[in-house]
């Protein structure tokens, strides 16, 4: 009987996902080895080096994955809020209880090793969100419920941003917008968000006065083409006013940004003069590393830009540079495709769930991974602002790898019981 149970741990597991996970983790490890290669410690398992340490993170991740698969699937639904609460508390506590290292207040330290609770907030929030939205009485379109949902996402975001000052880790929580969209959030919110981003960029690039005129002209044209009833006119008028407000607000927001954030936005948009030795250095070096890889790359361990420290943080946030430099266009494309395949596979799996909880959780996993992929790769090729977040399964670091593993394997566990009763 016990044997049968043990065997059932792997029963119905989606091996495609597990395989993609393993491939990404192993390729990531190899790239960390190349990125910080040290000739005097050339053994990949040498734990004095980051690649040796990453090996520890990988094996412990496997252990975590195994534990997650052993635990009863009902545990995650039953304790979703508890888990959320515990990690929220940890995130509130860390600035006061954790040891400050290099100005960062987001780490608990245990000897040499550190744990960043903000990383684990992702799966905890995802659990809570799934729990809340899967309640059959809940309709997201209800304003009250929309508010609670936004709170579930917003509270961790604000805590991590304000208390820990980790912009990158905080901003990830906006990724759940995809989950909310799938669960019925009005498209208007998404359009409004999209409009905000477009206007923010335009307002920084174009004289605001011209922008007001353009908005006015567009609204006038819209009026000509729709049925001129009171409702439509009201909508057009309010959208136009909101747009103008956003444009006006942009300069206010921009002024209140921190210097380095403002510079990152300037670098991305090519505003003003960018000094490649100072504020433009990171992105420029990242582009040089990737661009110099060419079609087939320079070959494994033959990279110069990453290995010799021209690219900063080449093992964590800029790990993709090593891929681009040593494996070229072919390798970079393969990595993007692999990550995308995993994400799309998760969406496919989410859609086959009978349980809304599992589906919502699955979308959360895909959303978070996609957000990380987009920002992380985007910043190295100059398509996204520099926000320090890791590339899933690739970047060096215990907390991030553990967090992604837990995030993913809870879903794999849920998915393996997809044929069971509705939760």
């Amino acid at each position, binding site marked *: 009987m016990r044997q049968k149970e043990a065997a059932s741990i792997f029963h119905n597991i989606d091996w495609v996902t597990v395989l993609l996970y393993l491939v990404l983790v192993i390729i990531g490890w190899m790239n960390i080895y190349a990125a910080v290669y040290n000739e005097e410690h050339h053994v990949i398992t040498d734990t004095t080096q980051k690649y040796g340490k990453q090996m520890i993170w990988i094996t412990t991740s496997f252990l975590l994955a195994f534990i997650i698969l052993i635990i009863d699937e009902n545990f995650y639904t039953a304790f979703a809020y508890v888990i959320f609460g515990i990690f929220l508390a940890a995130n509130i506590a860390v600035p006061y209880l954790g040891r400050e290292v290099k100005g960062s207040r987001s780490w608990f330290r245990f000897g040499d090793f550190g744990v960043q609770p903000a990383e684990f907030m992702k799966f905890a929030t995802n659990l809570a969100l799934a729990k809340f939205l899967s309640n059959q009485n809940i309709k997201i379109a209800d304003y009250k419920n929309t508010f609670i949902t936004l709170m579930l996402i917003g509270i961790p975001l604000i805590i991590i941003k304000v208390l820990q000052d980790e912009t990158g880790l905080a901003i990830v929580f906006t990724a759940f917008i995809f989950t909310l969209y*799938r669960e*019925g959030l009005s498209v208007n919110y998404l359009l409004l968000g999209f409009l905000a981003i477009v206007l923010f960029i335009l307002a920084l690039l174009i004289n605001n006065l011209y922008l007001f005129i353009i908005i006015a002209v567009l609204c006038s044209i819209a009026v000509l083409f729709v049925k001129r009833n009171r409702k439509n006119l009201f909508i057009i008028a309010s959208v136009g006013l909101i747009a103008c407000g956003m444009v006006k607000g942009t300069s206010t927001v921009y002024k209140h940004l921190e210097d380095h954030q403002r510079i990152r936005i300037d670098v991305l948009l090519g505003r003003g003069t960018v000094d490649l030795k100072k504020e433009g250095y990171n992105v420029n070096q990242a*582009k040089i*590393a990737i661009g*110099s890889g060419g079609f087939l790359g320079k070959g494994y361990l033959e990279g110069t830009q990453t290995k*010799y420290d021209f690219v900063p943080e080449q093992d964590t946030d800029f790990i993709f540079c090593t891929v681009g430099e040593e494996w070229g266009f072919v390798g970079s494309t393969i990595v993007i495709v692999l990550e995308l395949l995993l994400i799309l596979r998760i*969406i496919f799996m989410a859609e086959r769930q009978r349980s809304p909880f599992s589906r919502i959780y699955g979308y959360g996993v895909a959303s978070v991974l996609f957000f990380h992929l987009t920002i992380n790769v985007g910043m190295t090729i100059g*398509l996204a602002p520099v926000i320090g977040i890791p590339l899933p399964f690739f970047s060096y670091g215990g907390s991030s790898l553990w967090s992604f593993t837990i995030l993913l394997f809870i879903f794999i566990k849920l998915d393996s019981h997809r044929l069971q009763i509705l939760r």
Partner: protein
Amino acid sequence: MNNPLSDRKFIVMGVFILVGLIYIARLFYIQVIDESYKLDAQNQAFRYRVEFPVRGYIYDRNQKLLVFNEAAYDLMVLPKNIKGIDTAEFCGMLGITKEVFSKKMKKAMQPPNSPRKESIFEKQLSPKDYAFLQERLYRFPGFFVQSRTLRKYPQKIAAHMLGYIGEADKARTEKDPYYNEGDYIGISGVEKTYEKVLRGKKGMRIMMVDVNNRDKGSYRNGIYDTLPVPGKPLTSSLDADLQAYGELLMQNKIGSVVAIEPQTGEILALITSPSYDPNLLVGRERTKNFSRLYLDSVRVPLFNRATMASYPPGSTFKLVDALIAQQEGVLSINTRYPCARGYPPLGGHPKCHPHSSPLALSDAIGHSCNSYFSFVFKSIIDNKKYDDTYEAFTAWRDYATSFSIGKKTGSDLANELGGNVPSIKYYDKVFGKGSWKASTVISLGIGQAELLVTPLQNANIVSIIANKGWYYIPHIIKAIGNDQNDSLLRRFKEKHYTMVTDTNIYNNVIQGMSDAVQSGTAAALKIDGIDFCAKTGTAENPHGKDHSVFVAFAPKNNPKIAIAVLVENAGFGAAWAGPIASLMMEKYLKGKVKRIDLEKRMVEGNLIDKAKTVPIKKKKSETKRSR
């Protein structure tokens, strides 16, 4: 499950895939289409380090080493890497003051140098200083030692012929991209002429550096590196012993000796006096020594008289006139002309010394009769064969220049000049068109007036007579990298013939030169057991005492050496030039000299302090060498 919201999955997936495609397109652009990133990467991570080849050695004709290389060490600085060094200790090590240190540092930081660029801090440390420094340099990050090679001259001879090397200047690097500023390049002598052979080819090592400019080893184990190709060794035709002996004889005299092997055109000795120790123009003292030599306006030691000084050939040229006249059929061995201590038709001008009269050709050569050769020259110009003076003069000039005078010989000696054979145009300008004739330019018959030849050309004339009508272009290098048939040497394998072709004509002149030694002007200079032919000369010097000239070849049959000696302000040819030529021929043919007294007199003779020379104007090309 048929929830309308379910369709939203397509939107979500569509957005994800779209972003993926945009990213891949962007990657294609920066990795495949845009090449600029590759260049940026190379500029950042690669350092191209030049590997200097070993410069070719130079040997004499008996494989005696004339020039080799010695390692020298430059102390280099990369200002950017200097971190927390003890300046006082560093200055103490180098034996410089703090002021000098800051001056040098300033120089290293400013254009054309820069804090990010390596530049020379202290040039050419001695091996001893180097050993001392090398052990301690690790405590001074930013400083390192780079080895270079310096030329060394074990024999201390033939300074002008070997020449010297110096650093390439900006003008040079702009003209020839092979050189970078500061590279060594041959500036004069053989070092200049054979620069391309001697220098070899620079190699290039691609080194990788990290963001802090730390050395990270060679790129891909050096598969893209090129090794330096060492310069080829040269074998000179010079006989180092003869050269050294000649320089000894010529010490404290102003003048020149050129000795040629007639059968090959190989130069055996090329002496310019005063000379200098070639080692002076090497190393740290170079600039100081160069200025000292350069500014010596009395001795002008940097001036290469053998190839650049032009003197009237004097009596030597009588031989050429005798050859031309015979070829033209206006002179035979039995032709006799009178002499009245001068040329009678012009009232005893040019003057002559007392001797019996009239003389036939052989005796006229033996006694170097001025009157005789004035008659000979007149007979050439007034030759009935020609319609007028112009036609005859043109013929004479063509004959004369076929002896390789009036233009450069085309030797491989740097900075050679061509001398002068006056032209019709010149005389028309001086005397007016049609207003001159043989008697107007009669001095040409005795090798005076506007006629100018270099000592090298003079030696070549003797060589032509010894060969009876032909010569190889005189040259100082006989093999490149042990290859005697190198394409650079091909022009020295080609026989050149003069317009005087009949060997009997030469025999007549040679007989006269032999008589000069047996019973004529050179009778005092006989060498035991060697028959040689000679001609004394005295070149008129409008600035002071006449120059002593002597040309000879030996042995009479199957000549091995042709020699031309000129000692400035030394009077008659037999007084100084003759004994020096005779001693050198003895030395070369017999290996040692028996006439110790004569040798002693020559070696100890000091004419330089008595000389009242007017500084010779240097060619522009020579004066601009100072660095």
